[in-house]
């Protein structure tokens, strides 16, 4: 262990100004170090203002907002259908999870029925997305701690998942595949075989990453006992996702507030006890295996369901198939109406929370009865999880700050949105 964990109960979240102010008379002189916004190990444009006493971190102030794109505000001037493409761009490592959260909220507003085939496909793709997102976390986390091979191996498997996304939606990353009422297009014929080919290899590949890291003494030295986030503090900060589960609290919305029929899938919620960087690593590795398990069940379910509708047949929500519009005037009207004006959900609001790879992702939509949302708010896990960073980092070395930031897996597009 590189440094002795200091038992601080300081839950305060400093702002950059608290750290950069000159030392008062009688205060100890400390050094202020700017980490980021252009620093590879902050995983995006995150600026960390670090107060140092020698090599030891005295205080950290996360400074966010460098990637602010005004997505929530822009949604207010776009129809519900058009706003969907912006959700891809919040958490750009898990666009399908964002798509899902948004369409579930809109569907709740509209109170519309989703065909079972679409729901099973959504579960399958979102779990693949979880694996791909965790692979990016694993690769970059290991790369930050100088384990290069894991990064290359992880991205190789991620590429296979992105290829599946390209197969179904036409885009590797900005998929926009889930639409209000179901899916954008039906799953292609080669989809089951492609997914099966990936699911056949993934467990062996996770074993390989574990061979490289799990018992590696260098890895243990850099991660064990580093950046401890205990259960009490995790709850106080509102941390969700692997960070919370590594602290010993079994809280996973897929189990605790099931959506998309997750209660009918057989899977476990991995937890750990210590809440350090190593435990967060273990939890995410176990989660990838569980996700692969859910994928197998969802694939079987798609097979059992057979071909069927992939989008709701309610023509007031989803446009009709294009083959209909050349010979049905009514379909043509619906098609034009939906693509120009869009659908009008009733007045009211809807709140939907799902378990994204990073934690609890929620969308809150207020509708005033017009075709455009009155207000969209996204509760993004990265933003909330980042609050715990000063608490976790105090008392450790600068090098540990890199490790524990990576283990929280922030995505800055989601922090600033």
């Amino acid at each position: 262990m590189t440094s002795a964990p200091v038992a601080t109960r300081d839950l305060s979240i400093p702002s950059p100004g608290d750290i950069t102010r000159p030392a008062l008379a009688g205060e100890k002189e400390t050094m202020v170090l700017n980490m980021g916004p252009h620093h590879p190990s902050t995983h995006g444009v995150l600026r960390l203002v670090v107060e140092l006493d020698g090599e030891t971190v005295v205080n950290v102030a996360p400074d966010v907002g460098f990637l602010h794109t005004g997505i929530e505000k822009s949604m207010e001037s776009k129809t519900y259908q058009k706003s969907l493409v912006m959700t891809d761009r919040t958490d750009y490592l898990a666009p399908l999870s964002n798509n899902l959260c948004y369409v579930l909220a809109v569907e709740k507003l509209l109170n519309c029925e989703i065909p079972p085939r679409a729901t099973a496909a959504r579960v399958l793709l979102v779990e693949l997305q979880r694996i791909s997102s965790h692979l990016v976390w694993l690769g970059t986390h290991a790369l930050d701690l100088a384990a290069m091979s894991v990064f290359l191996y992880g991205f190789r498997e991620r590429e296979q998942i992105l290829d599946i996304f390209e197969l179904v939606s036409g885009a590797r990353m900005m998929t926009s595949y889930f639409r209000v009422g179901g899916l954008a297009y039906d799953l292609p014929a080669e989809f089951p075989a492609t997914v099966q080919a990936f699911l056949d290899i993934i467990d062996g590949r996770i074993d390989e990453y574990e061979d490289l890291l799990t018992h590696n003494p260098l890895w243990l030295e850099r991660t064990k006992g580093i950046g401890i986030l205990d259960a009490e503090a995790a709850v106080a900060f509102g941390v969700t996702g692997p960070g919370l589960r590594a602290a010993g609290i079994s809280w996973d919305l897929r189990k605790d507030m099931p959506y998309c029929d997750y209660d009918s899938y057989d899977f476990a919620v991995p937890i750990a006890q210590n809440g350090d960087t190593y435990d967060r690593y273990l939890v995410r590795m176990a989660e990838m295996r569980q996700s692969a398990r859910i994928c197998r069940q969802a694939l079987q379910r798609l097979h059992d369901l057979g071909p069927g509708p992939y989008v709701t047949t309610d023509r007031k929500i989803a446009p009709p198939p294009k083959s209909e519009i050349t010979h049905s005037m009514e379909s043509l009207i619906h098609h034009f109406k939906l693509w120009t004006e869009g659908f009008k959900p009733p007045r009211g609001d809807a709140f939907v929370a799902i378990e994204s790879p990073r934690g609890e992702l929620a969308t809150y939509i207020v509708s005033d009865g017009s075709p455009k949302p009155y207000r969209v708010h996204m509760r993004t896990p990265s933003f909330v999880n980042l609050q715990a960073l000063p608490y976790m980092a105090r008392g450790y070395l600068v090098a540990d700050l890199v490790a524990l930031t990576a283990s929280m897996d922030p995505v800055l597009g989601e922090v600033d949105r």
Partner: protein
Amino acid sequence: MLGEIFKGLRTTLRYLFRQPVTVEYPEIKRPVRERFRGRHELKRFGNGMERCIGCSLCAAACPSDAILVVPAENNLQQPNSPGERYAARYEINMLRCIFCGYCEDACPTNAIVLEHQYELAFYDRKSSIYTKEMLLVPAEQGHGDIPPVLQQLDRRPSPPAQIDL
């Protein structure tokens, strides 16, 4: 302790004797999937007529306002499209386009299609605007029959409400 390091080294050593999964990009190009959303193309019918009827639904569906359509009335002697109108100007700003495919989904005549070309670099902002001439496929590359609903040109004198659909 050393054993664990050797276990990892054995994994990396195994890969030393395997074929690489990467390709040398500019020389070798990875094939894209059928549904890949790349550069747009404006399609034609089998007889060479433009599929685009200038309805501007693509421009309305575009979330990033990247499309400009200026429709014009067809010349009855030499029509450009089988409908009453055609797109006199059709421009896509590739700096704004996010390749979501909504234009393709919205197009009632399957005129605009996102094809597989993905190398879209340019030197200045002006050349990011793709004009109709750049997007339209050559006349011999048309395909498909004109649906009856569009064959209205010879029946123009009758009021639209009486057109038999």
